[in-house]
């Protein structure tokens, strides 16, 4: 069975990884907001572009940033499948070899981060507040 130390280490890295996903998305979102501001500026200042001197180059970039942002948001933040699989596997492992996850955490004085607790909740293992870092 997994050692308490390894459990804590892995749960922390899952948290750090998830935070990185959020950071990646936040910078992409900054770009989207900047482009929205630019579009607003253009329209409010009656800047128009003709057929050839068009906005397709900005538009293409904007569309692609939106694409990868949405991909990040859907697959890495709201539904981070890969991370959830690992969390689920780890909690299942505990259940199988030890029993109740919260008992495991409590008995070994492990406190997990809130992000990990949230991911655990999403896969059906709710972690008591007493086992979460404050």
């Amino acid at each position: 069975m997994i050692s308490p130390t390894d459990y804590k280490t892995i749960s922390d890295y899952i948290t750090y990884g998830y935070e990185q996903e959020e950071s990646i998305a936040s910078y992409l979102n900054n770009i989207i907001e900047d482009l929205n501001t630019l579009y607003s500026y253009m329209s409010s200042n009656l800047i128009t572009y003709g057929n050839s001197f068009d906005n397709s180059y900005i538009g293409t970039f904007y569309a692609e940033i939106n694409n990868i942002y949405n991909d990040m948001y859907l697959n890495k933040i709201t539904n981070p499948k890969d991370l959830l699989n690992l969390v689920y596997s780890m909690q299942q492992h505990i259940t199988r070899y030890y029993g109740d996850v919260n008992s495991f955490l409590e008995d070994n004085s492990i406190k997990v981060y809130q992000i990990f607790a949230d991911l655990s909740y999403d896969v059906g293992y709710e972690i008591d507040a007493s086992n979460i870092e404050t």
Partner: protein
Amino acid sequence: MAFTKDNIIFVYRDLDSDSLELAQYYQSFRDLDSSHLVPITCSTTEVLADYSAFNTEVESQILSALTSAPLFSENIMVIVLGLNVPGGFYDGTDVISSVSRIMKIKTAYSKKRENFFYIQKMSDDFVLSDTDYSYIVGRIDAPTLSLAKSIIDKTRNLENKKYITGSIFVNPYFASSDSSYDDYKNNIVYFLTNKSYLYNLTVNTTQYKSSSDSVFPQLINDSFYFGGINKGSSSFFGNTDSTRLFFYDTNTTSTFDIRNSSSLNWSYLAISNDYICTSGSMSDASANGCLNIQTFFESLRSGQTIGEAFLYSLPYHNWTMTFIGDPAITVSFPANGPVQSFCSGLKCDYCPEYTPSEIQLLFSGIELNNVCITGSDSGSFQFLYSDIEINDIHRLEQVSSCKWEKTYNNVIHRKRWSTNTTCGGTSDFYEITDLYISLEIYKKYSNIYFADITIKDSSNTLDTYVYLYYSSNNINGCDLSGNIYNNSYNSYLYNATNKIAIVGKNGSSTITHTICPSLFDKTYVGKENTESNTWNDSSINLAKSIIEYDLKREIYYTLLNTIVNMTDVSSKIDLLHPSNTIYNNSSTDIEKAFFSKSINNLFDWARYRFVLDYKSTFPNKRQPSFITLYDFLIMKNYKISQYLLNVLGLTYSDLDLEPENIYKEGYWEYITTFIDYTGDYATYNFEIDVAYDSAFSDIVYSLDSSTDLNGWYVENDIGADGIVRYIEIPNSGIPTKYIGKRIKYSSPVSKYLTSGALYYIRFRQKIGSTYYDYITSTLLVFS
């Protein structure tokens, strides 16, 4: 302008029927509430003996009214001093104006205090909190009630007009024997040379004389006057059909005695000769106390009231300068933008009608400079046009059946449509196919600099008219008879927007169609600047996103290794596969697939969208249909992060870039806004701490501008090219006049950090040993 009638009070002399009548006259004009008429008990002395007398007779009573019911809760921002209210007081030999002092009524009197708002606001609305620093104050006073009321009458007339129409008269060549005014006069000349065109009014100026002051013989059809000559007479004011709005003279006593009907001081002469506002000093303001002409006009053009314009262009409070007139006046200029020359055809609300002779005058005496369009002297009209749209230019060049004529003066690239070619046309046509020309025309037109554009015929005589015509749909050329050519030649002119045609014709004809300036109310440079800044920000954010992605991969690699190195087999079996999936899904290949398209799109944006700036940056190069990334980065003084290239698996040379185009590894910079903490004049220095941790217990660098200036800069201005220009912070620190500007720390090599690493940074301002709050943020080194 962010105030209304509800923010205005009018101060009058109690028990003075004339003063009350004027107050009620103003009340009626501005629809003020009765509670906004504030009586004060004061003498009729125009200049009181000292501050103590002024405080008793004027200041304390106004302050009391402002801080008592009902006004204390009514957000007063504007104070108008009425008839027979004292206009100033002596402080030594200086005469401190009531206007200047009451502006600063919330703070204790101290002579000649720097104005917090001086040249700072201009286009920002005045808001209630600004009254902590200054009120907007004006004075309506005159020798007689009728003259004072006439100021209000003329103000009403002005506000019923759509825009001001009279000329701007500026005399920068005064005080020739006093070198202390040299900087001030240079600023006026700068305004005349670079800014005065913005107002779409005729600008008159004097000529420099080496041995004496210059003067205008007389003002005719004037709306504004800026000058600096000694006392005058009413004969200076000639005939006018225009509203005389603002008269300012730097003479040391120009507003000393506005109530003296025999005065030869300028302000009295101005209001008695139909000016509705005037400003000047009651005693010597010195050169550094004079109004800033550029700020004054810019504020008006930004829609601020004349009272705000006065405030923002006034160097000192509690000083000698005063403002006579209604501070709530707003004024519009003839066109809604920095364009105006001639206009008629499109019949917009802003465009005056011009006769052919007036248009001809516009081009008379034009010297040939760097742009010249030639045409044959065929006797029939010539049609020349330029297309600012890159791809259309490109396509034009592919119309190969026409005769080409290459260059003229190494500038023009043109194509000739002769009479019988398949290119059509019945006359000699010349297309400008050099984008630079069109861009220059566009810009020059926006700035109404036609001086370097002309059309000559083959005999090299200047007998050709030129004008521009704009269409939102098709290129529409007009000949000088007003015929619009938007059908016959459309097959060659393409359907597109934002085109400009230049049309010329030999000989005299009637012009009935010209450009409508209101269609060009935003300059090209401004557009490009905004867009390129967004490009640069996007480039940096993309680099940061990539760095975070790389960090994510490192975390998942460590996570995978943790599981691989576990000794327990059962857990390894359960966890290895999902952790391996996580790692594999953040691989460099996945990352490349994730980011590469957006990076390439970003580079394409640069290559194709900023070509119009090319020629101004590289005047000796031919305008291409697109530019290289290198050219773009040089043009804009940008760099890109190595991380953008790393993801693509490229080096800078693969993209034909040079090392100078890439941020040096470890370079970082920090930019923030200079904040005012005191509300008073002060000189600040700055500190930055960079740390590994958010608690700042492990600090990498502590930087202090008061001990080491290396790397510290303050924003000086934003150039016409849209680039923010910085200057080094001086040893003495940064004075408050830079409030709102950017402060930048640009790391020297000795202060580089680890590329891709995250740090914590905190910044604070200080005055001497007084420290202000830290501003804390993270610093991701994206270089």
